[in-house]
């Protein structure tokens, strides 16, 4: 019967096997096309990840070193008398010693002197001041010290300012390059690891700006977040998974938790701004408020992970404990929860890693302020690592571009470490039943 229904263009005497064989090549080609498109899609995703990481590394690695110049500074008692400390002409002392090393400049000319002085970072005089204040005996002596150079010269030394560009388009002029080259020829220029990046807080000057304030702020915020979200999340998960009666209320709580996990982060920022700052009168820019906000966002993650971990503990454990006379709470707290703990901790660390990268709610509660010292308590004003990245990305100075990338690399480093701990915990302690 099928013979009569074959298509008009096909010879009547072909069998269906031959028909299929004829079309098979085309169909296989179609399949391999689908495979290639799939592989292509994956490669595009990989390529994007590669470009992302490599662009960050290629711009960021430069910020981990900082150009320094070694100076022989004569601490002139005339300029820096003991009785006037901590005041004194520290900048003049530095300029005088630098003037001796740069050939062919007339330091008595104010304009030239200022131009030469601008080779040094603005913070150099303060480190000299701190040294002298700490040890007033240095006055009258000649000390050797290493001070950072200012951003344009740092860029020049790192090759980020092209010497070939016409002078008028270049931030460092020809005579200034000559000065710098003279310093290089004397072996005074070095490029050690940029300790300031971790020892200093934020600054307007790229060569002095560091992440300490942001790291401390993020630490306080994450600590607050953990102390609030961990107990609340575990308590809530245990109740919902082990004790809650199946009724409308527990359904409602569950719907709420699932929805909270999908609410945009900026809405949590609005909540924090209106409720914590507006109504409760908590301070702006404080890591405590940031941690509180992040806790509300992290809680659903912890609850979902804890419930999954509790679910994975086999019922036989519960039944055995109940059979031996334990109460339901004793079963949960003495048997089920300890067995579920690796899963709970894994979920918590992943939740905290998300909280560490969260930016938008922190912007709204003012953790993007310009603060030049690290917070000493969770109620002081501070920035956090992601908001510091945002601030630096917005800064016009060239030196902040590589510092932003460096800060991102630091942030990504923390995230990698946290996730690695989570994976380690899971693989080391998770039991398969």
């Amino acid at each position, binding site marked *: 019967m099928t013979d009569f229904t074959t298509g008009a263009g096909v010879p009547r005497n072909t069998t269906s096997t031959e028909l299929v064989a004829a079309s098979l090549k085309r*169909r296989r080609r179609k*399949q391999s096309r*689908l*495979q290639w*498109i*799939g592989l292509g*899609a*994956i490669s595009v*995703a*990989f390529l994007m*990840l590669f*470009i*992302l990481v490599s*662009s*960050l590394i290629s*711009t960021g690695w430069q910020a981990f070193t900082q150009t320094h110049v070694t100076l022989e500074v004569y601490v002139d008692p005339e300029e820096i008398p003991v009785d006037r400390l901590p005041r004194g002409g520290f900048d003049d002392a530095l300029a005088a010693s630098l003037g001796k090393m740069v050939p062919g400049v007339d330091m008595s000319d104010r304009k030239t002197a200022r131009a030469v002085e601008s080779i040094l970072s603005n913070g150099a005089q303060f480190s000299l001041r701190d040294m002298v204040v700490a040890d007033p005996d240095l006055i009258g002596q000649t000390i050797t010290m290493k001070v950072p150079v200012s951003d344009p010269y740092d860029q020049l030394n790192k090759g980020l300012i092209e010497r070939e560009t016409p002078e008028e388009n270049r931030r460092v002029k020809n005579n200034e390059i000559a000065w710098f080259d003279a310093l290089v020829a004397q072996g005074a220029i070095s490029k050690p690891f940029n300790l300031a990046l971790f020892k200093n807080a934020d600054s307007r000057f790229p060569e002095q700006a560091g992440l300490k304030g942001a790291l401390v702020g993020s630490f306080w915020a994450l600590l607050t977040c953990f102390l609030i979200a961990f107990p*609340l*999340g*575990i*308590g*809530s998960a245990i*109740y919902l998974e082990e*004790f809650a009666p199946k009724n409308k209320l527990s359904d409602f*709580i569950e719907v*709420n938790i699932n*929805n909270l996990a*999908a*609410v*945009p*982060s*900026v*809405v949590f*920022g*609005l909540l924090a701004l*209106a409720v914590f700052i507006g109504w*409760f*009168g*908590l301070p*702006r820019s404080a890591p405590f408020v940031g941690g509180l906000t992040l806790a509300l966002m992290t*809680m*659903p993650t912890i609850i979902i992970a804890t419930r999954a971990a509790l679910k994975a503990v086999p019922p036989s454990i519960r039944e055995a404990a109940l059979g031996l006379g334990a*109460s339901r*709470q004793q079963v949960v707290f003495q048997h089920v929860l300890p067995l579920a703990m690796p899963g709970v901790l894994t979920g918590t660390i992943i939740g905290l*890693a*998300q909280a560490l990268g*969260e*930016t*938008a709610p922190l*912007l709204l509660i003012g953790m*993007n302020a310009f603060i030049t010292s690290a917070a000493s308590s969770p109620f002081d004003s501070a920035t956090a690592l*992601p908001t510091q*990245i*945002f601030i630096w*990305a917005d800064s016009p100075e060239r030196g902040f571009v590589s510092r932003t*990338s460096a800060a*991102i690399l630091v*942030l*990504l480093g923390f*995230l990698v470490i946290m*996730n690695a701990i989570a994976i380690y915990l899971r693989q080391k302690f998770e039991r398969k039943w």
Partner: protein
Amino acid sequence: MTTLPFLLLILAVIVGYVLNRVAAKTIRDGGNRLHSMTSYHGMFSALLILVPVLTFILLWLVLRGPVIDGMVMGGLPDGVLVDLDSGGVQLVLAEIKSVSRGQVFGTPEDWKIAAADRFVILHQRADWLLIAAVAAISLLLMGFARSRVTADFRARQGVEGIVSGLMIFCSTVAIFTTIGIIVSLTYETFRFLEAVPLTDFLFGVNWEPQIPLREDQIAAEGAFGWLPVFLGTIVITVVALVVAVPIGLFSAIYLNEFAPRKLRSVVKPVLEILAGVPTVVYGFFAILVVAPAIRSLGQSIGLDVAPNTALAAGGVMGIMLIPFISSFADDALSAVPQTLRDGALGLGATRGEMMTTVLFPAALPGIVGGVLLAVSRAIGETMIVVMAAGLIAKLTINPLDSVTTVTVQIVTLLIGDTSFDNPKTLAAFALGMMLFLVTLMINIFALRIVRKYREAYD
């Protein structure tokens, strides 16, 4: 000073625990059979002290600041706060506070110094009052707990009751958070709507959120029509989906059906990395690499591309969403029953044909649900657009142009502004309300699709 009440509390908890435990032990050693273990007697006392006193301290600390501020401001001499708006009042308060910390700039008026003194005294008084109250309540509770220790006191049930209550409280925090979001957004939105009519907000085609600095300033009348902002959000979301959906979908198809097991175990975690990168990093990537690249590409083929084109922000957002869509599609494809696969293969379909004609249509509802969740993500995404998209609202659908989004406007309106009583800052809350409602509706709809479809095969 704030650590002292906490130390006191910890001390009271420990003492209460030991006291009750020892008392219970004495009864047991006297030959009586206890109903509960001695440690439960101790725990009963500890929890009975911990929960109420800790709640008390936290409430006190939260309310102390505003209450004292109110008392200081209320005690100011008459007339000094007249004709000051709320910003001015806050400035006065800030000055009093800085004087009270000893940071005196210039010569403040006498009444400010007096207020600062009062501020300091009230704070000291509040601190001592708190310590006294903590001590008193702790002792009272300790005594009560101690008096309950008898041989047949059901201490375990008592402890379990308290723990149960605590756990129920923990679960309701999620509800309170949702209520907090809804109430605060609604409240501020209503205040916004007092200044700007609802129809202007919903149907206006101009978004110029500025407010006159002076009463008589000309041409500073703001316009608060959210349509151009909403349109910008849609443009960027569409660009993101155009990038993310094909890449995510085709990788999921390949991973689910064709990839060798080894390749799959490598590719999946690497794709997850894309989802774990903080969005502020993507934002920086967009301005550092993607936007200049698109701009120079556009110039080389003679197109005029804005520096903060929607293509850059949207494209980078698309990269972020790839793992989201691919894992949802992968799950949906895996959820299709094996019988459907076997049936298709048994009828002679190639694996490619099985995928395109059987698996994909069967998994489509789940995939659509995942895409919808990605849409809600894209609408709510903030940092990428704050850094890479524009600030000025334009009624355009040209992705080469610069557009702004709801989240960008929320952040820019609220950064650095403290007072909540002008339409400019309140507009951010109105936008937040719309954002919350739109994403909530999409989420509920998407989750319903996903769930319904899963049930069909179970």
